[in-house]
């Protein structure tokens, strides 16, 4: 570094905020530049601190003020002799202080109270975090209240305990998982803010929340009211739908992983961790670990069989079990050991809510039953549907006069109920993937209920402008408010939420300004101009760029397009970090990178596109075998163009995981006969381009013989 160091750089250097490379440059310069050394010394001189030091020195030098030692015994004495009077006066004055909410009530059960921790000495420092105190321990790790040393911001830090952390794969897996978790931004999911490694293990940092997890609430309350339970499950389901839309599964939904904040919001905790702990877990692991028991009571039958068979519907089962526990105070199925419990989940019929709670409204019983069906196909299929059913129920509840409320019989904490009722309701998240259509439908009985009349009355009032009567008016679309009977009808799937609609529109405008051609869902015609965008909300389906340089700045404004299926970047110049924002295109199926000068590193960012079916990488001379390993992440590829790449057999490893391949171009590559046996195994292959590869005529013939009905090998 030739130039002298700026003050701001110097400051960052002194507080150790620079990355290793830059820091080294500054060190080199500073070690040799006398003028910068002088500046550093002036810079780090602190006149305020110097004054304190001088006071101290004056006192030291003053004979008369020789310090008399004050022993711990004397301190204890002083403490004991004053604490009682302090208590009295504090108790007296406390009555005069209006409640400000600043002080936690003395009977607060939370292990966290607000504010005071900032003054405690850290028990340990990890990176930039000062651990203040342990607030919990689970199967996966120890949870601390921590403070970010610079921002002075309270956070929750989880140190993960895992016997395999020395395994580099495991750490990679952790980061991959955390990257996905880091993308999620939903009010009902606890926000992960940082992740890293320290002292041979990994840690995860999350936003700090004031409140309690549902397990401790259940411990304190026994069970909660119907309204509170529905509100809690509704919020959790909404958060989970957002998780599911990102192709993630929580795998460990249970009361201790659901957190109720002091303003009534439910936050899902520990996302991504269960995947780490259970991924390699086998049935035998369950027998000797106590901590698994906590999860076994909520585990879907298919989850215990194999990690591979689970999908998002396993979370629905677990949430169903949680729902049952919130309402009754007990888990639906519990045996003496985790293994027996898991078997019982598979074999024994689930209990009915009404056995414990005869007053349970029929629609909630049905919802519960539909959530805990043994066969995932028989279950209610998406969290979005759970949300909808609960919204309908809660909307009806809120319109009932207070004294007619169906759950006044419960010996409940009114406070908790109020809290849940007043919580901000997050807009319902739509489901992006459907497995099959849900069998469960609300019974007509529900609509014969006298509540309907009350709702109708509510609607009339609403018409008169008394909107405040409705707790969640936004959840019922305007057109449906007029007729309560059809308020149960499904929402149109192609209508994005207002937030998503705004995001899609902004992205569309940006893309059009970049000269792109767009296609939106439900409309085949191409859009070239901003004026051609429809006035209503839409989802972008396809974006084609004209030849230009593409970097992260170009792509960033497109982040979050949840239904984008096609992205054409062919003939553009794609820089290394251009595809960084692409992971948010969870629905992307087709990606064209034909002749884009893309490098191995640039290509590495596509690893999260699990739904990718069509990929063209033709004519990218910088790509190597190593870079193509990213394709091993995919399983649904149908068509892949690798023509004119400098790759060999190693580069097409992915064909072993992608049995659906129908179209593959490896012409003008160095792929040899070694790959023939894997090419032969692609039973759906229809178009295979091999010319000018290293595959010999014998090799080609071998492939042909494997497809007697239809010769897949095509020339040019």
């Amino acid at each position: 570094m030739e130039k002298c160091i700026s003050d701001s750089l110097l400051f960052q250097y002194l507080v150790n905020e620079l990355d290793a490379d830059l820091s080294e440059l500054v060190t080199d310069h500073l070690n040799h530049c006398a003028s910068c050394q002088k500046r550093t010394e002036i810079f780090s001189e602190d006149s305020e601190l110097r004054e304190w030091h001088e006071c101290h020195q004056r006192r030291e030098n003053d004979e008369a003020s020789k310090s008399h030692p004050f022993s711990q015994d004397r301190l204890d004495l002083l403490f004991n002799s004053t604490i009682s009077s302090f208590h009295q006066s504090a108790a007296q004055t406390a009555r005069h202080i209006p409640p400000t909410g600043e002080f936690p009530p003395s009977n607060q059960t939370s292990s966290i109270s607000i504010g005071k921790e900032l003054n405690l000495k850290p028990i340990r420092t990890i990176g930039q975090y000062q651990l203040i105190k342990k607030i919990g321990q689970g199967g996966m790790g120890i949870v601390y209240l921590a403070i970010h040393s610079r921002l002075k911001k309270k956070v929750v830090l989880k140190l993960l305990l895992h016997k395999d952390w020395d395994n580099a794969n495991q750490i990679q897996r952790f980061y991959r998982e955390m990257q996905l978790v880091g993308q999620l931004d939903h009010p009902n999911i606890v926000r992960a803010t940082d992740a890293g490694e320290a002292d041979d293990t990994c840690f995860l940092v999350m936003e700090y929340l004031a409140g309690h997890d549902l397990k401790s609430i259940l411990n304190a309350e026994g069970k909660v009211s119907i309204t509170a339970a529905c509100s809690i499950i509704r919020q959790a389901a909404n958060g989970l739908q957002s998780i599911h839309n990102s192709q993630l599964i929580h795998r460990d939904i249970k009361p201790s992983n659901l957190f109720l904040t002091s303003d009534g919001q439910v936050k899902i905790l520990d996302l991504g961790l269960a995947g780490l702990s259970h991924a390699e877990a086998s049935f035998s692991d369950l027998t000797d670990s106590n901590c698994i028991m906590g999860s076994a009571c909520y585990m879907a039958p298919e989850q215990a069989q194999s990690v591979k068979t689970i999908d998002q519907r396993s979370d629905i089962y677990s949430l169903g079990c949680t729902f049952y526990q919130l309402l009754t105070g007990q888990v639906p199925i519990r045996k003496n050991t985790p293994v027996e419990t898991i078997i019982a989940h598979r074999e024994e019929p689930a209990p009915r809510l009404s056995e414990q709670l005869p007053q349970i409204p029929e629609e909630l019983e049905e919802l519960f039953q539909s959530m805990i069906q043994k066969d995932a196909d028989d279950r209610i299929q998406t969290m979005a549907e759970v949300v909808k059913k609960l919204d309908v129920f809660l909307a009806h509840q809120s319109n009932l006069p207070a004294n007619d409320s169906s759950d006044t019989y419960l010996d409940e904490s009114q406070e908790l109920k109020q809290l849940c009722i007043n919580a901000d309701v997050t807009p319902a998240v739509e489901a992006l993937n459907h497995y099959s259509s849900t069998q469960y439908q609300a019974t007509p009985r529900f609509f014969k209920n006298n509540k309907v009349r009350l709702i109708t009355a509510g609607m009339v009032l609403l018409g008169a402008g008394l909107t405040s009567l409705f707790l969640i008016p936004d959840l019922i679309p305007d057109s449906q408010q007029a007729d309560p009977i059809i308020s149960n009808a499904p929402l149109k799937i192609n209508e994005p939420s207002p937030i998503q609609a705004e995001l899609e529109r902004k992205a569309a405008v940006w893309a059009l300004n970049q000269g792109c051609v767009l296609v939106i869902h439900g409309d085949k015609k191409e859009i070239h101009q901003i004026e051609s965008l429809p006035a209503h909300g839409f989802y972008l389906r396809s974006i084609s760029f004209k030849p230009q340089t593409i970097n992260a700045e170009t792509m960033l404004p497109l982040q979050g397009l949840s239904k984008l299926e096609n992205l054409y970047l062919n003939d553009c110049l794609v820089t290394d970090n251009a595809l960084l924002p692409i992971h948010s295109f969870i629905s992307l199926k087709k990606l064209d990178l034909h002749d884009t000068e893309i490098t191995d590193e640039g290509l590495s960012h596509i690893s999260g596109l699990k739904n990718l079916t069509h990929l063209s990488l033709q004519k990218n001379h910088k790509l190597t075998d190593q870079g193509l390993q990213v394709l091993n992440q995919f399983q649904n590829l149908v068509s892949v163009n690798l023509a004119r790449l400098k790759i060999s057999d190693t580069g097409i490893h992915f064909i072993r995981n992608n049995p659906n391949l129908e179209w593959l171009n490896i012409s003008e590559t160095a792929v040899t006969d070694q790959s023939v046996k894997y090419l032969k195994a692609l039973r759906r292959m229809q178009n295979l381009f091999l010319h000018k590869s290293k595959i010999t005529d014998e090799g080609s013939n071998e492939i042909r013989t494997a497809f007697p009905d239809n010769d897949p090998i095509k020339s040019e």
Partner: protein
Amino acid sequence: MNYGSDWPSTHITLLKRVRVPTDTEAWQEFVEIYGPLIYNYCRKFKLSDCDSEDVCQDVFRQISTSLHSFEYNQKLGRFRSWLGTVTYHEICRFLKRNKRFKNQSGANGLQDFIYEQPGEIDAVWTDEFCGHIYTTALDNIRTEFDDKTWKAFELTWINDLPPVVAATELQTEITWIYKAKFLVQRRLKDEIQRLSFDSVVFQK
């Protein structure tokens, strides 16, 4: 010396905590920080060991009954001044009560003191207060640093040696010394700020 209002005033919370009847831990820490200070201030007025301890207790009782009126009000005096005033009054009360300033010759601490150094009370208290908080803060943070880092800080800050000398003595690069000094200095400032409640103001 006053860390102004632009400093994040997280340290206010200990004072808040001592107002919560159940938070004996906070009160304990409060006593630990300020007990020795008040005791030594009493000794400065030539009070005996035993009497100093009594006055100390009186001061803390006084504090405990007045705590509810702590407010954040930058316009009114700082916590430090308020504590000085309370201590001063308690010492006066004690001396009056015991009438020692009449009966005992040579031990008329306060009067002698005031007579000898008119107008100096505030300055003396400030030095006592700041000196005590400074040394307490140094003690508190010492264990957070390794020996070498601490040594670098001692040489460059406490002994005020040029960093280049410290670097030679510790056989390290001058840049390392810069960083070590800066690191400890910042932590020391934080701790002083935490202990001194300088942005907490007492409303009468």
